[in-house]
Every structure is written in structure tokens, then in C-alpha cells.
């Protein structure tokens, strides 16, 4: 079965990769979707997911408006995925 193609809203710090704040990607899970995004926009995934396959601390992912913290979260046709920068994301010191 073909993997679902969904709309992905892109956070502003990642626009240098996509050139657009709304793109398409496909994948049956959030993790697969981010891998497809990386295929389309090389380098974008590592800025969001670290080498231990953990979502980076100050990035947030929403599927149909619900926050998702699991790369295995299923994605289906018609879903809308949002990638958002958390308000908390200053430098390590926490300062802006």
C-alpha cells in the first residue's frame, strides 16, 4: 500500500531547507515522514531529531493539532503535520 502523502507545516527556522512554510511528505509514521522530508530537503531531519533518535528538546510536532512525541506515531492520508519551535528554545543558559 502506498504511504500516505500529507501536508507538513514548517517552522520558520527550517525555511532555509524547504523554501516554503507548507510542503508535502509521505510516510506511515512520524519517523518515516521526517526521513522523507530529509530525502527531499537534505539535512533537515538532523536539526529536529538527534543521533539517538530523540526529538530535539525545543522542537514540537503536532498531528492534526495534537502534540506528538513519538517517532512511531502513525500518519494516515489526510493528516496535517505541524513542525513548531517551542517557546523554550533559547541557548543552554535559557536566555534569549
Amino acid at each position, binding site marked *: 500500500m502506498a504511504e500516505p502523502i500529507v501536508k507538513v507545516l514548517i*517552522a520558520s*527556522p*527550517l525555511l532555509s531547507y524547504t523554501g516554503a512554510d507548507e510542503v508535502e511528505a509521505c510516510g506511515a509514521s512520524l519517523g518515516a515522514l521526517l526521513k522523507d522530508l530529509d530525502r527531499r530537503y*537534505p*539535512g533537515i531531519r*538532523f*536539526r*529536529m*531529531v*538527534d*543521533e*539517538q*533518535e*530523540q526529538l*530535539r528538546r*525545543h*522542537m514540537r510536532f503536532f498531528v492534526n493539532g495534537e502534540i506528538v512525541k513519538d517517532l512511531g506515531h502513525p500518519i494516515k492520508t489526510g493528516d496535517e503535520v505541524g513542525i513548531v*519551535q*517551542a517557546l523554550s*528554545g*533559547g*541557548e*543552554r*543558559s535559557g536566555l*534569549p
Partner: protein
Amino acid sequence: MAKARKKTKSGTSNNARASGGTLLLVATRKGAWIYKGDAARKEWRSTGPHFLGHIIHHMMLDPRDGKTLLAAASTGHLGPTIFRSTDMGKSWKEATRPPAFKKKEGGRTVHHNFWLTPAHGNEPNVWYAGTSPQGLFRSEDGGVTWNEFSGLHDDKQYREWMGSEQDGTPNGPMIHSIIIDPRNPKHLYFAMSGGGVHETVDGGKHWAPLIDGMEVVEGFDPKTVTFHDPHCVRMCPSNPDRLYQQNHCGIYRLDRPGKVWKRIGKAMPAKVGDVGFPIVLHPRDDERCWVLPMDGQTVWPRTSVGGKPAIYSTGNGGKSWTRLDTGLPKAEAWWTVKRQAFAADMGTTVGLYFGTTSGELWASRNEGKAWNCIARHLPEIYAVETATIG
């Protein structure tokens, strides 16, 4: 044409050309700038900001090809990466595989790339990177892809010496001061904050600490490698057997093959002390170096001592030190200079440059005798490197 370029009050403009002269590569908490000096190093023109909003920890030009420029970048939200330019920052490409630890149970995550060092002259396109938390990475393709270097990251003893995040600096524990012996590409040093100074003579197969003679904070055991906090280690360009070090606990010199550091900072004035972050060496005189002391008392303000910044210079290997503060603020200047933010050029009379935590860029055309501010109101400056082009 240079004549047509508009200069700012600080003697800079936004149209640096890449042909000939001294470059200052300025990395800040909010982006990077490149300053180009005229032949007299009197007027400076700038390009930037590059990567506005990115945290740039270090930017280095490869002296072997004179064109490969690497910048260590992250943001408050996005993971760390390395950008690469071969046209003096007109365009940048991201590393396709930035430094990253191996994926494994309990594995570590690179928080930021802190230090970039071009490798030996006989190893074109090879670079080393030091990260926070402590990691040592190597690229063999000019910074496009990076791999973990040596078995360091899996060495139980080294992992113990690296300590936890609480054992590191406020900005995280890090590897810095990656030094390659110009006579032997397999002879390397690096330093860890915290975790001491280390050496390999077989290209990273084996490493050994080099901490004898170095002091630690009172009450701790200097035999414990973890407690050592070298802030900046440099090898004399004119004498690879001589190293200088600015440490959390003093200024040191080591003459190889000796293995015991000598605390040369004891000759500094007692009221100033010998605590600081950076140390800069003369390119041709192994007896001469410069430091920028900071206040390391009680709660560690890490400001200039008494709000009166000064460079101290030695011309006799640390037997005596001379205060150099002409042109610097006489009072109420509570900034400091980070370990990567003080550099020398290769001029016949050496030019010195430093960037402050309050975003000022200072220059001396006469080895520190007199200083003038060439840029103000930049973001907090993390690193200043020089490069000679053309």
C-alpha cells in the same frame, strides 16, 4: 572600488572584498561576520551577518587551500551542524553528515560543535572538530562528512574523565584546543573542560593525559584527571616542542619532551592573578605570548579584573609580564574574552585582535602596545580567528 565604499564610524563597512590582506573571522551568539583589513590593518570592512540568529561557536579558514571556510552552527531550537563555504562566505553549504555520536543505548548527543581545527599540512581536506559534550570528530573531505575519531568515545577511562555535564563549563563540557604537531600528523593534543590535556603519538590509537604540574581548585585532588580545567592550550608556531596553557587555575608552559607543566602565571601581579580564558602566541618568537586576565575570585564573575581590562604580555617565556592597556577602557568595562576570541595575525609586527562578551571587537597593530575598537554592538562574541589571504 574601495574608495567608494562607505565606512561606518567604527571604520567598517558592509562590503569586504576577498582579495589580499588580513581577515578576522568573528563568531557570535547571533551570527558571524568577516572583517577584512587594509594593508596597514587600520581600516576594516565587513561582511555579515552570516547566519543571523544562529549561534556560531567557531569559524575557521583552511590555511592549506586558502578558501575552505567552516562555521560551527546551531540555534536555540535546531540541532548542531557545520556549514562550509569556498567563496569567502558568499554562499554556504551544510555538511551532509555533521558530527554525531554513534547511536546506542545510553548514547550521547552532540549539543554543539565547539572547536574546528584544520589538520596537518600533508593531510589536505582533513579537519578535526571538538564538541560539547566532549567528542572528537574528523572529516577527510573538507568538512562535508564527519566521523568519530579514534576509540576515545568508547574508552571507559576517558568517559570517566569526561565526567558529567555538571563537571563541565556553564555552556557544557567540551573538547577544545585540538593541536596537530606540524612535524607529525599522528601527534595530536586536545584539552577538555573539564578533563585535562591529552596527547596521542600514534594518530589516536592511544591517548594519555598530560596534567602533571597543573593545579586544580583548592580542596580537590590534582591526580584526578576530571578535576583539571584547561581553558586554552596553544603550541608555539615557531617551536612545536613548546606549549602554553591558560587554565582555570593559572598560566602554564610545557617544554617537551618534558611532561610537567610549569605555572608561569605566578609571575603575574598578585592583584590581577593568572586566571583567564584565552592565550595567544607570537608566530615567530616562542618566548612571547599574551593573556587577558579575568576575575576568578569567589563566585567567578569572569569579568575583567576590577572592570579595567588589560592584556598581559611576556617576552621571556613567562618569567615576567607587562601590562598593556593603552586605548582600552580605563574603568567600568565589565566584559571578558572567551577562550576562542583572542587571536594574532602573522604580520611583521604582530597584530592582535579580541572580541568581548559585550560585542566589541578590538585590534592592536603593534603587538598589544595600543588598542582601538573596530566594531561595537555586535552580539556576544564567541570566537575571533585571523586568516591571511591573497
